[in-house]
């Protein structure tokens, strides 16, 4: 590990482009579908919470 550099190991963006860990492909679905799944689950939880509040009050 480099020391005294301003930024971590100081890797350049050209080197980064070939790095395996930057490979950004989800193993299932697309990223957009995964994001929609997370946000859709939140919307359902809020609606269920609102329904529970109304029903139990």
């Amino acid at each position, binding site marked *: 590990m480099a020391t005294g550099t301003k930024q971590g190991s100081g890797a350049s963006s050209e080197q980064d482009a070939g790095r395996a860990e930057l490979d950004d492909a989800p193993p299932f679905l697309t990223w957009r579908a995964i*994001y929609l799944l997370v946000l859709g689950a*939140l919307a359902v939880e809020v609606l269920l919470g609102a329904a529970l509040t109304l029903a139990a009050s």
Partner: protein
Amino acid sequence: MSALDWAVLFGTLAAIVLYGIWKTRGPSSMTDYVHGGYRDRWLTIGLGVMATQASAITFLSMPGQAYEDGMRFLQFYFGLPIAMVILSVAFIPRFYRLRVLTAYEYLEGRFDLKTRQLAAFLFLLQRGLSAGITIYAPAIVLSKVLGWPLNLTCVVIGGLVILYTVAGGTRAVSQTQRHQMVVMLGGMVVAFVVIVHRLPADLSFRHAVSLAGTLGKMNVVDFSPSLGNRYTFWSGLAGGGFLAMAYFGTDQSQVQRYLSGKSVTESRLGLLFNGLLKVPMQFLILFVGVMVFVFYQFNQPPLFFNESELARVAQTSRAPEMQALEAEHRVAFARKRVEVMHLAAALDAGDAPAIVDARSRVRAAAAGAEAIREKARTLIAAAVPRPEIHDGDYVFLSFVMANLPRGLIGLLLAVILCAAMSSTASELTALGGCTVVDFYRRSFRQDATDAHYLRVAKIATGIWGLLAVAFAGFASLVDNLIQAVNILGSLFYGTILGIFLAAFFFRRLRATPVFVAAIVSELLVVSLWLGTKIGFLWFNVIGCGAVLILSSLLSVGRRYSSRRADVSKSR
């Protein structure tokens, strides 16, 4: 506690710790210590991120919060899934591209050293104080179980966590956290099932929820736009979202968790897993508290859940007054129980007018019982020195110790201690790592070996641990632990997030305007906290907005004055 409980408690903890030590044996490096060697998969990251956030306070304080205040605290987490998506899109790729060891390293490349170290300093200040509270919470548990003085228990717990953390660093934390998380979630599910099972046989689950709603505990979502109301849908979405974005995006204890991933994909999936499971998990924990509340509508609760305070009053001349209040409380409970049974019967019969009538009677009886509890608090405050008059953090523990079967008490205590170990270990490694990477290595000694930095990081972790134990001594002064941690975070996170958003999305902003704006914004937030009654979640929005607006104005001002200087020179 029975021998079985002790066996379950120590068996669970020892198995997890020994597994962590076995998995992380062999030589270590600074990268291993801070990021665990970049080898984690998404499930380990997701569970680790959740375990880091879920401290012992979560399991001690949140059921008590629901017992007193209902489900509305859940709204605090509504912004979190949105924040996870934003972090996955905008933050993670940037951190990966530069392979930073701490989030603050990124700021030096974008701005300058002073801005990096300001953000790191705010993190150290906030997280160092919070670590004290996260050590204090499990100390409450053990001091109750073992009968030790609270301060001594803080020292013992803090010492054990320091040893465990200094020895293993992030690698050990990663390896143990997913098992700790499984124990935590499993333990709460079992507790929930047992509590529901212990409700009266003729009370259906639906009527138990309706009873909780009658007494104002099923307030899950509140769309009212009041700024003074701490927990609403809006404050949760905006303030909670900013807080989550700041906490997960800029707090090194979390950044080091997901940057330990093998790739951007693993880190993103880990964070999104957290975004998907967080709200249901918090719902479960709060709902356990509501079910404990329903349980105590049919079973006599203590007048005051922190029994050690009652014991202190019993040794003073005011003891007879407390005994009188206890007798009064028993009578009020019996009266309330009759009304609750009437309501349960009306709900069972589906008799609408009787339900309305019974509800108002239950509410009146509950108000009477609460008034006696208030008198007890006043008496405790008057009778003993340094009184602890808020007992919300003791509700769940008191319930567990008095009502759960043998074996399960040990499991629930293991849940609380697992939570304490996982969050404190993450905090201490982050504090130690940040101290070395952002200050020692950057400003004091730039040419030492990796082994030297690893040694200094371990020493720094130990020192932060000792400071956290010292801060824990002051934690008893706060009303509610989980609220105190979140208020503390909200005072600093807005400013830190503002600096990062300026770095990521405002390309024209330069270092000095952002640095000055961050200091002014921090002072503004602290002044607002001291001088107004604005709900604390809004401080995240205010701090972040103030940094962005002020730095933009300062930049415009600087450009304008330099242009005027150029014009006057050319003349």
